[in-house]
């Protein structure tokens, strides 16, 4: 078990190293910090000072080491666009994106899993056919189109929900702000969260349905049925556990897509999260932020997948022996 963990950990480190290297090359050699951070009439002394501060005069390996060292200390450089430390920009926006992602995931699981189960157990019911048709739309429709339509119907026409910003937020601790404690926070959160969850709902529903159908055909379910195990236990204990375990891994792999959806959703709803920050940085060619984003995505993806691989043995008893 420990050997397995060490192995995967090592592989993850190698991947992260490559990504970090790429990000370093981008941030160090693409774009000119001197031109971006200093006003046009800056003196030579100012230029020299900045050059020394940013280690621009050192050799590549040295600069890479500084890059890693700084990163580990939370120093991700200075944004070309706003002249602030990148880390500050990120931290302000992190809660917004995390809350949005969390709420949308909860919605997706709460709707996707039960509907998938129902569609698997009662495939011919009208409800199931509706679900399956809906799932095709959910998987097919572009994210921003869904957002636009939701805004038109629920915000412009019905006026139930907000389509702009986060609403009122409450500060918790030193830097976290939450929109979950205010009414206007929820009013602003619902539409973007639903937009983001739509694809996930469809995806989870289809996965759960396919997996559960396969499980229901298995010998052990047949045997349980032959022993007179009651239907409710058959479906929700015997079958469900076998269904959900593989579904977990697949959801982990979808993480990249979810992060991408966050960018689009945040733009459609003017949600002040990291996704919209990323877009602004791209449009302004703000290399430090872009390269941090590059590393961050790779990091999240690798860590989540590593975590899933390590958790899997705990959930599926077959894996350890």
């Amino acid at each position: 078990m420990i050997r397995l963990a060490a192995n995967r950990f090592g592989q993850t480190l190698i991947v992260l190293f490559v990504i970090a290297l790429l990000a370093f090359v981008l941030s160090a050699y693409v774009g000119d910090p001197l031109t971006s951070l200093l006003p046009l009439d800056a003196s030579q002394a100012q230029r020299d000072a900045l050059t020394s501060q940013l280690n621009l005069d050192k050799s590549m390996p040295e600069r890479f080491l500084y890059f890693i060292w700084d990163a580990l200390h939370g120093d991700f450089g200075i944004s070309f666009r706003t002249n602030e430390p990148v880390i500050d920009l990120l931290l302000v926006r992190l809660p917004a994106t995390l809350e949005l992602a969390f709420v949308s995931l909860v919605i997706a699981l709460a709707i996707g899993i039960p509907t998938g189960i129902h569609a698997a157990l009662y495939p011919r019911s009208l409800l199931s056919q509706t679900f399956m048709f809906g799932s095709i739309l959910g998987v097919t429709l572009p994210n921003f189109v869904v957002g636009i339509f939701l805004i038109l119907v629920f915000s412009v026409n019905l006026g139930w929900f907000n389509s702009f910003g986060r609403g009122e937020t409450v500060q918790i601790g030193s830097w976290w702000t939450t929109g979950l404690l205010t009414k206007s926070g929820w009013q602003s959160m619902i539409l973007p969260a639903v937009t983001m969850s739509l694809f996930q709902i469809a995806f989870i529903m289809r996965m759960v349905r396919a997996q559960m159908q396969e499980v229901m055909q298995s010998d052990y379910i047949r045997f349980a049925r032959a022993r007179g195990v009651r239907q409710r236990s058959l479906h929700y204990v015997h079958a469900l556990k076998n269904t959900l375990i593989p579904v977990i891994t697949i959801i982990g792999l979808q993480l990249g897509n979810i992060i991408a959806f966050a960018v689009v959703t945040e733009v459609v709803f003017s949600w002040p999260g990291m996704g919209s920050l990323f877009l602004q940085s791209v449009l302004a060619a703000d290399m430090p932020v872009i390269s941090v984003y590059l590393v961050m995505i790779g990091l999240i993806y690798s860590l989540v997948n590593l975590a899933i691989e390590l958790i899997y043995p705990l959930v599926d008893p077959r894996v350890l022996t």
Partner: protein
Amino acid sequence: MMNDTILTIKNLHVSISVDPPIHALEGIDLTVQRGEILGLIGESGAGKSLIGSAIANLLVSPLQISQGSIELDSQRIDTLTERQMERVRGTRIGMIFQDPMTSLNPVLTVGHQLTETIRTHLKLGRVEGRARAVEWLKRVGLPAPEDMLSRYPHEFSGGMRQRIVIALALCAEPDLVIADEPTTALDVSVQAQILSLLRELHRETGVTVILITHDMGVLAQMADRVAVIYSGHVVELGRTSEIVEHSQHPYTIGLMRSIVDIDTPVATLFQIEGSMPRPSDRPSGCAFHPRCHRMTQRCHNDVPALEGNTLHRTACWHPGQTSGTEGALKIEAKDAAC
């Protein structure tokens, strides 16, 4: 042993619901006496497993019972709803399936699977249920039964898993157990152990057993009576000794003759020419007639019914023991493929 009937199957037809329907089982008539071991023998695809599935109402669509009736203790069970069957399966009819490697739920502990079955049907509390589970594991010969409760199926060998399966099939104290090829998937050395375990449990509990297999050797050891199944029909039925030593149906004769034992001269291997037809290609009249050397026009036209006495019945227009090897295809040893 009481001599009354526990199970009656009358004119059972199991069909695939297409147009026109294909009959996997046709006109099956069987009665099972309480406390006996009835063997069902036939080759793969003959329909013997279907009989077992039909009794427990476990047929998977498109297969379904299209005609006939099944009565357990004089009560019809083929017309029960799924909900009603939940109270029959496990506690009145038990089943043992063929493959122990896939019969057990891999993510539930052995203890969970046992105690759930016990408590669902016998209405015992948690402590008693657990104790009963331990008792059963001991009974089927597993060492350290208390520890075994918290283990998962993959931690056991094939033979041990099949013992657990047997415990699961019997723990709710059914009156009838259907064992569908219980030893086929096991190593030869383990097969004997499992069979003797079954025999012992049968002796202890008096449970009625329907033993389905393609291996005549198993039935010769275990069964009181044997029914020979060919292409969806019962072609011969009677006491085991009668079937083995005084077979009347040409198919049964061929079957017995093809069993190789240590005394068989190496030079002769026996095989009935031709092969059993699929349900969709079943010939008219007697299903065996194209392969039979006693065949007459009558065999082509009419389906023979089971005739004879309580000890021995045959479905054939020309029943009778034969001497010699008529209809035999001798395969010389040097031509035989290994």
